[in-house]
């Protein structure tokens, strides 16, 4: 189980590469943000984390009260601290996103007015109409995304990709009995994950081989057709080589008597400990409380209280 970092190259059209060779960045490509800090959260059964994660996302989507959204946000941040993840790291993608989020919220605010009967119009000029409801929903939009992003970050920092897949497979196993191919799906996901680094190596090799024949891979040129003609000598062989790998992998699996998931014993077995149940209980408790608060419609009261405090 490797600890790896996720680095994405931003596609800035026409931007050229730094002094380092054009090919080396491939080495940095890897999946997952897993940082093993050995915290309590890391040691939780992946199934607990999966369930809580799903619950969190559903709750985030369903709530319509800002107070609830804030409760969830605080909960996730606490989770991140528990996992001993540097908040700086977790908030990094948000820094990039915050502007986009803002623009999106603005777009929604201005183009889709909330024409509910109990909405009071706060601002109106010509066609543009902003109601208090639309402001709330714009803020909710942003907070919702923040919760989901931070939650997913927390999950990915504390769970390695292998753990995730084993967790999913265990959770879905009961469905196997009614014909849902849980085992096959998770195996496919597993193969994807493990084939990825091989693929990166092949891609790098291909890029270098074609470049050695004079194909210029520096992204300095804008021309679409040229870029296309550079891409095909790389893409087509990449697919073909991968399909050949797939053929070999299939034969290798068959020659080791693999014949589907039925009746197979498992090498990795997940055993839930009391600590896991406790974590599940606490996590569900927090999220449920946010949903209860949502139902109580406390937003108005809280808003009133705040205004009184400020006045």
């Amino acid at each position, binding site marked *: 189980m490797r600890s790896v970092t*996720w680095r*994405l*190259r931003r*596609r800035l*059209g*026409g931007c050229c590469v730094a002094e380092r060779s054009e090919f080396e960045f491939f080495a940095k*490509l890897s*999946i997952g*943000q897993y940082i093993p800090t050995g915290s309590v959260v890391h040691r939780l059964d992946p199934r607990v984390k999966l369930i809580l994660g799903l619950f969190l996302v559903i709750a985030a989507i369903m709530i319509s009260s800002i107070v609830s959204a804030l409760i969830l946000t605080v909960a996730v941040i606490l989770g991140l601290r528990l996992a001993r993840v540097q908040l700086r790291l977790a908030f990094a*993608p948000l820094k*990039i*996103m915050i502007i*986009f*989020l803002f*623009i*999106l919220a603005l*777009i*929604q605010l201005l183009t889709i007015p909330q024409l509910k009967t109990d909405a009071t119009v706060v601002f109106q000029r010509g066609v543009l109409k902003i109601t208090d409801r639309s402001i709330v929903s714009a803020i909710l939009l942003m907070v919702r*995304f923040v919760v*989901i*992003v931070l939650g*997913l*970050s927390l999950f*990915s920092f504390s769970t390695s990709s292998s753990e995730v897949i084993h967790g999913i497979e265990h959770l879905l196993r009961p469905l196997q009995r009614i014909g849902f191919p849980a085992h*096959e*799906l998770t195996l*496919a*996901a*597993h*193969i*994807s*994950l493990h*084939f*990825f680094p091989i*693929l*990166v190596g092949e*891609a790098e090799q291909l890029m270098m081989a074609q470049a050695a024949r004079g194909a210029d891979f520096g*992204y300095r040129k*804008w021309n*679409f057709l040229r*870029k*296309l003609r550079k*891409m*095909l000598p*790389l*893409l*087509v062989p*990449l*697919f*073909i080589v*991968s*399909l050949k790998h*797939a053929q070999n*992998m*299939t034969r290798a*699996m*068959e020659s080791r008597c*693999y*014949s*589907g998931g039925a009746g197979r014993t498992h090498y990795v077995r997940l055993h839930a400990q009391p600590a896991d149940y406790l974590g599940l209980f606490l996590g569900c408790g927090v999220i449920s409380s946010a949903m209860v608060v949502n139902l109580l419609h406390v937003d108005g009261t809280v808003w009133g209280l705040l205004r009184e405090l400020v006045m």
Partner: protein
Amino acid sequence: MNEKVRKIVVSGVMGAISIFLGASHLGFIPWFAGAALTIMHVPVIIGAVLEGPLVGAVIGLIFGLFSLLQGAIAPTGPADVWFVNPLISILPRLAIGPIAWLVYRIARPLKELPSLALSGIAGSLTNTILVLGALGLFRYLPWELIGTIAVVNGLPEAALSAILTTAVVAAWKGIQTRRRGSSV
């Protein structure tokens, strides 16, 4: 048994390619004004054409999941924020494979190569229409803008998808094209 194992492996391998195209710059072919045509859905189409609609759906699932995670954890642009919603990132992508396969099956008895191109187009358009449609239904974008994007971005993407699908499947299956010989 032979079939089943191969289908699983191809799903995994094509899924990895889709992720790879998304995570590296290779998956984005620059078009005008900084916009890009993506080919991340092409592995889905190729997998579906070679191994069937179920495999296509699985690869689509992997593609969708990845685009969701990318949007949440490592976004590269404003659009990524929308993809955090699974109904936008995952659901439409499940359809790409089966539809591409269907088109291929229908057109194939007529002629092999054009049916590959058609399935490439169909798969790409499915991706474009369903994703943009979802964006519209969720009110993330106004419909007029969606229409423009669909044409300006979606059509060239479909053409690109057709070219790539045809090139790869023809090479893999050793299918002969109309060309008689080398142009040298």
